[in-house]
């Protein structure tokens, strides 16, 4: 192994039934560098990480770690830890029923007794050293997701690891927390830790990373110095084609002012969204809720869909008052909702792609009018084709699809019910650039066909590209509404940040 290299992976291959997930991939990590691992969903990033951490066993290939001789066999996360490889996953992999301190130390040493006092003191030192707002004796489940993520990082940091893998650590963090995390990463880098950083956020890559390795379809595209690789080139390498001009969307925004109002809410409030709000959307309009995480964007649309208990207000469809007290009521009015948390609220992981797609339609029809197999197959195939869902077959369980494809399956499910009003809550989170653009295009196409769409996203550029009207929220209240000329990044930021309502 070369001098100054902490980790070398050579010729890594991994196959799953029907899919070649990794095909002779090479990867190397230097001491004290932050190395981005990039690729679209399904490119093999997660698989490579899981091979390295012992969750999957590799079919072929060699892994060498500094200080250990020869090919290192990593058969379990435990082996990986012992080899000095720590991982922080996108989904929190801690135990909510244990205390913060326990979560930082459990599984790390052998031996009989748990030295509670020592452990809690040490945890307290680490947490305050890193500025993480958690108390060692607090039950982990009582912390917010962001703090839980930080605890996971604190755990990894304390393990004196040589290689730290951060798998999409920033997707549930806000800007301040991301900055804190980057500070931490630079600290560790200075201490000589090699960091593998997996993310979808291009700006973040350019902010902290030294080198970038790009994977596509399970194959290595190449490893580049960050400063020698312009952002556009990176994207085209990830997608394997020149990035399409995004300006196709300009000038096609529809305010829908001329057409009739499809849905209207007056003084609507729910248990999760106590401040009553007014809202309306016209036929063929695309509008969006924007604001910081936790500002009440999702809660507002959940109230519209009846997903939380509605406590007051009035809803009108086509100007006629209707009662929406449950998602079922909303569905009957032609409203569809793609939830924020696709893992918990969206997909049913063990069911097949086909069954997931026809689920909502089946509910609408009632269970005494089953959809025939042939019909289900036809409908599912149609959407797999039109949305370009990458799946081995109709019967593949949804869990084995990549994140972006899972999202498309849920989208297909709702499109199948032919909604008049579609609510998309963070449909592009954790999805690669290519699929993001596809979803944005699809939204605009649907609007052209007369569907009303409400779009929520944390990325302002994306909102600006798709929405004709932005409703800005802060502290669970609507603080502004932007249209036309006002739709610039700057004015959105200014409205979110506060001061005068526009």
């Amino acid at each position, binding site marked *: 192994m070369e001098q100054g290299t902490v980790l070398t992976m050579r010729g890594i291959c991994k196959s799953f039934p029907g899919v070649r997930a990794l095909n002779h991939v090479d990867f190397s990590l230097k001491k004290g560098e932050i190395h981005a691992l990039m690729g679209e969903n399904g490119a093999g990033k997660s698989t490579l990480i899981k091979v390295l951490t012992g969750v999957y066993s590799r079919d072929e290939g060699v892994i060498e770690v500094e200080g250990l001789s020869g090919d290192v066999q990593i058969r379990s996360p435990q082996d990986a830890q012992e080899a000095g490889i720590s991982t922080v996953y996108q989904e929190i992999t801690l135990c909510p*029923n244990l205390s913060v301190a326990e979560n930082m130390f459990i599984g790390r040493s052998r031996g009989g007794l748990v030295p509670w006092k020592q452990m809690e003191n040490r945890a307290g030192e680490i947490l305050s050293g890193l500025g993480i707002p958690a108390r060692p004796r607090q039950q982990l489940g009582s912390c917010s997701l962001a703090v839980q993520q930080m605890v996971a990082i604190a755990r990894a940091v304390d393990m004196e690891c040589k290689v730290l893998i951060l798998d999409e650590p920033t997707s549930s963090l806000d800007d301040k927390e991301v900055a804190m995390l980057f500070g931490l990463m630079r600290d560790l880098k200075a201490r000589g830790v090699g960091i593998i950083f997996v993310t979808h956020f291009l700006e973040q890559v350019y902010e902290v990373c030294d080198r970038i390795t790009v994977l596509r379809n399970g194959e290595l595209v190449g490893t580049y110095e960050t400063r020698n690789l312009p952002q556009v080139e990176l994207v085209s390498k990830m997608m394997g084609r020149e990035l399409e001009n995004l300006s196709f969307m300009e000038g096609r925004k529809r305010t829908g002012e001329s057409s009739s109002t499809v849905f209207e809410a007056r003084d609507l409030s729910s248990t999760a969204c106590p401040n009553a709000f007014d809202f309306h959307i016209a036929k063929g309009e695309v509008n969006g809720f924007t604001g910081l995480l936790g500002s009440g964007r999702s809660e507002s649309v959940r109230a519209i869909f009846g997903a939380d208990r509605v406590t007051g207000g009035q809803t009108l469809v086509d100007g006629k008052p209707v009662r929406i007290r449950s998602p079922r009521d909303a569905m009957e009015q032609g409203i569809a909702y793609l939830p924020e948390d696709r893992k918990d609220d969206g997909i049913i992981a063990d069911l097949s792609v086909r069954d997931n797609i026809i689920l909502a339609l089946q509910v609408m029809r009632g269970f005494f009018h089953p959809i025939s197999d042939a019909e289900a197959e036809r409908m599912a195939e149609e959407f797999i084709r039109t949305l370009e869902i990458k799946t081995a077959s109709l019967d593949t369980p949804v869990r084995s699809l990549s994140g972006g494809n899972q999202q498309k399956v849920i989208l297909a499910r709702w499109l199948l019910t032919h909604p008049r009003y579609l609510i998309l809550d963070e449909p592009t989170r954790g999805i690669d650039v290519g699929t993001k653009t596809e979803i944005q295009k699809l939204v605009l196409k649907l609007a052209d066909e007369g569907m009303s769409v409400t779009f929520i996203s944390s990325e302002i550029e994306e909102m600006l590209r798709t929405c004709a009207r932005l409703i800005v929220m802060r502290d669970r209240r609507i603080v502004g509404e932007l249209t036309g000329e006002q739709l610039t990044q700057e004015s959105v930021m200014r409205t979110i940040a506060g001061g005068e309502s526009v």
Partner: protein
Amino acid sequence: MSRDKRIREPMSDTHLLMTITICIFFCMYFLAMAVWGGGFLRWQQVFDMLNNNAALIIVACSLTIVMIGGGIDISVGGVIALVAMSCVVHLNQGGSIFTAALLSLGIGLAFGLVQGYLVAYLEIQPFIITLAGMFFARGMTTIVSLEPQKVAHEGFKTLMNTKVEIPWLGYTAKNGNLIPARMEIGVVVALLIVVLVYFMLRKTRMGRNFYALGGNSQSALMLGINIRRTRMITHLLSSILAGIAGFVFLMHTGAGNATNAAGAEMNAIASSIIGGTLLSGGVGNVIGTFFGVMTLTTIKSIVTVSGLRDPWWQSITTGAMLCFFILLQSVVLSRRSRGKNRKNQREAVK
């Protein structure tokens, strides 16, 4: 760090549920003392409850361990019956108490190894495996002896009749004699096991691994815990404790019978749940379980003294109690998580 200690953390779910059970137990017992007086006013009542339920306390600990790890073990009743019967036959054929004790441990160990291996390494549902184990143990019991057997071994009879006397908790009978409170040897064993298991769950790495496994097995794996071995150990401990429970059971009844300890597994599950162990895993505590057994027993005594002597009344009240506790737990825990969400939202807004 000393500054941090002064912040009182909100109780963990485990401790909250346990505290509720203990409070309810004492309320109920004091109520019984106030309304029915008599036996409830004597310490002997408590010791009788312990004497009659020593084996149940032990297998309730079994279930607590397995349930914390996110599993279930319904073979324990069968193991008790098999151990009791085997020991009787062994003793009556001239075996010693020592070898009988080894036999009980051996049977427990065998069940634990097989069930644990199947559940942990072949990843078969614990319910199915231990259901099979239950039928197997019951069947074996009748093979060992079809007829009920009484212990004839003199040494063992002496052991059965040996009681720990606690004079200062006794009462004075009508004729003026002091009758000390009496506790069987089995109770000492059971209490010792409760303490040991409490210590194991709280202080040892293995015990904490059980909680991690039950809390989220996937996370536990990622945290570097050998979840297969951990799951195996929960079943191993459970069955060994069931073996000990069988021996203790025999010390109380002095006879082996194919229907011994019928439904013990269900009572043990009920006690664990009442004591604050969640069937979903990761939450629970043997002190709570101990009070779960006592609560269940107190209810049964109350039913009996209030004149409802037919056996079905006990089953009905047990069922009602179980419902009540599960409702209470889910209400408490859901209120808690709602409070947490609100708090986090407030923080996020800040």
